[in-house]
């Protein structure tokens, strides 16, 4: 895994601090060329991983990259699936069953499930999960996706409900079908580590908020620090700047002090911010 990953929140109107900023970003990045320009700036600065949601618009980026294989010869995608609002909105609009039907390519899996009723077979559920993963991965066809993440809304819903097998199903399918490493994004890292260990996913890639403020680090910052230092997993730090609440130097210094953090993902809306953040990470990673 690379040390520095480029994230995509800024492209889709996601800003945890301000709806105004989020909207301004959504307006700016409505033009796909703006996204490509920024991605190019990151790529040319030496950041070769784009960690992105399986948002419909990412498909346009994928198409662009496929068209220019030489330009992006080193570019890797770390897809994060699913884009949950797509499903949540569909469930609200159509109900659970109809929404599922819409996202499943094959009608068969679902009807088997419904027919089965209470006695639904595990293989049906697992088959359906695999179909959903494949549907999300379609846009990355022909591109490098060495790590595939499960988004935090889904990870944390499954984790909370105790559907532990789901992590195993996800991990197996990602490995078998895409020859990729499974990753898990979570807001509840210590608890997730316990469960991943329990279902036998060894040395997992886990992406979580890790920042000096302890912002959205469920279980508390001390527990996170202890887990990072003592448990066998590959931590990916996100929200390191806590949406801008911590000054960049202080923020990066803190994250880099946690020696066992493997990668840092950050998003930025300007070339200078990309370069500054990258420089800071390199400065503190050496020290």
């Amino acid at each position, binding site marked *: 895994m690379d040390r520095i990953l480029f994230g995509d929140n800024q492209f889709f*109107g996601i800003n945890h601090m301000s709806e105004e900023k989020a909207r301004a970003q959504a307006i700016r990045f409505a033009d796909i060329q703006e996204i490509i320009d920024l991605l190019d700036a990151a790529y040319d600065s030496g950041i070769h991983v784009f960690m992105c949601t399986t948002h419909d618009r990412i498909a346009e980026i994928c198409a662009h990259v496929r068209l220019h294989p030489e330009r992006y010869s080193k570019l890797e995608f770390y897809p994060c699936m699913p884009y949950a*609002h797509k499903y949540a909105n569909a469930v609200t609009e159509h109900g659970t069953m109809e929404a599922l039907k819409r996202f499943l390519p094959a009608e068969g899996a679902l009807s088997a499930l419904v027919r*089965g009723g*209470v006695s639904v077979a595990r293989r049906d559920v697992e088959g359906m999960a695999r179909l959903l993963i494949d549907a999300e991965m379609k846009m990355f066809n022909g591109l490098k996706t060495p790590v595939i993440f499960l988004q935090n809304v889904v990870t944390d819903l499954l984790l909370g409900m*105790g*559907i532990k097998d*789901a992590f195993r199903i996800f991990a197996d399918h990602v490995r078998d079908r895409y020859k990729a490493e499974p990753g898990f994004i979570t*807001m509840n890292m210590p*608890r997730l580590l316990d469960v991943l260990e329990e279902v036998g996913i060894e040395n997992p890639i886990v992406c979580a908020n890790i920042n000096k403020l302890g912002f959205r680090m469920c*279980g508390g910052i001390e527990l996170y620090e202890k887990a990072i230092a003592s448990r066998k997993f590959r931590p990916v730090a996100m929200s390191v700047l806590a949406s801008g609440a911590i000054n960049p130097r202080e923020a990066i210094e803190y994250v880099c002090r946690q020696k066992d953090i493997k990668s840092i993902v950050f998003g930025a809306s300007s070339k200078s911010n990309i370069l500054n953040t990258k420089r800071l990470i390199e400065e503190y990673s050496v020290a």
Partner: protein
Amino acid sequence: MLNVGLIGLGKMGLSHFAIVNTHPAVKLVGVCDSTSYLCGILHKYTGIEVFSNYREMLDKKSLDAVIIATPSRFHGEMVREALNRGLHVFCEKPFCLDVYDGLDLAELAERKGVVNQVGYHYRFVGAFNAAKRLLDAHALGRLHHVRVEAYGPVVLRPKGATWRSKGSEGGGCLYDYACHAIDIVNYLVGRPDAVSGTVLNRIFSRDVDDEVYATMHFTDGMTGMIAANWSDDSLRRMSTQVTLWGTNGRMVVDRQEVKTFIRAAAGSAVAAKEGWDIRHTTDFHSDVWYYLRGEEYSAQLDYFFQCIVEGRRENISSFESAAQTDCVVSAMLQNAGEAWRQVDSGARSPTLSPNGSGGFLSAVMGR
């Protein structure tokens, strides 16, 4: 350990499932939904005991509290049943489609002495509470206007087959988005006494409103405007903003920020500084034991359980306060059918009325 049962496994039900299931002081002992395939999967993968009939769950399991996350038309019956069994009840919003039902249940809960709460989660958002503290300390002086807006993407096509597309089941933007908007206004500045100029428009839905606009009138002469539209996909999720104007300045608050503008001449002792001041969610977020979609979803359930454990009777989002929100909804529904004033284009013309009925203002019934 509190034994808790959950009725209804829709979007909110599943979210509550995950949050309750991780709470250190609570044991989720049973869930209930009429969809058997869903229950089947959940039982298979989590081992939780599942029921298709809620009464059966209440009969068989020894519960301290129940969470009801079914469509609103079922709330009255289910809540009453739970209260009569002496259970503490957390119920999803909107509380009751029939105002009297809601007020009765609030009274019954009071008589039974059980903790009762409705899922108006904005009351547990750090930014809204920071705003409330400032308002309670009169940081804006005398308030004269409040505007609340709620926009987001729910109904974006002329189709829809769920209960949300049926007004009789608690569907429609008024029952969904506008309820939250009304409730947060009630929380921040108190309930309006009357509403006027209510507009319930359809955009894509066949049977329910997709946008809601109304004027609100408060005791002390303050007025308010509400605008809610669930067919706006320029936002990726529901976004609610409250703007308040007072003699000392202005405040704009949403889930993430509190922005205040305090007039230089105001000499406010409470506000941090004159002119604009912006506080972000990182300034007032409080830790929760489990995070799913937002701290407030965990915080409201934790508060509910804490009230039970500590035997606290008052509640930030009680049946009573939710019933008052229902009262405003009901007033808006009635007001939407009331008279309009025709624009006088020179020729003399009478008042135009959609249904021929009288006044322009609907009083909000309540206590």
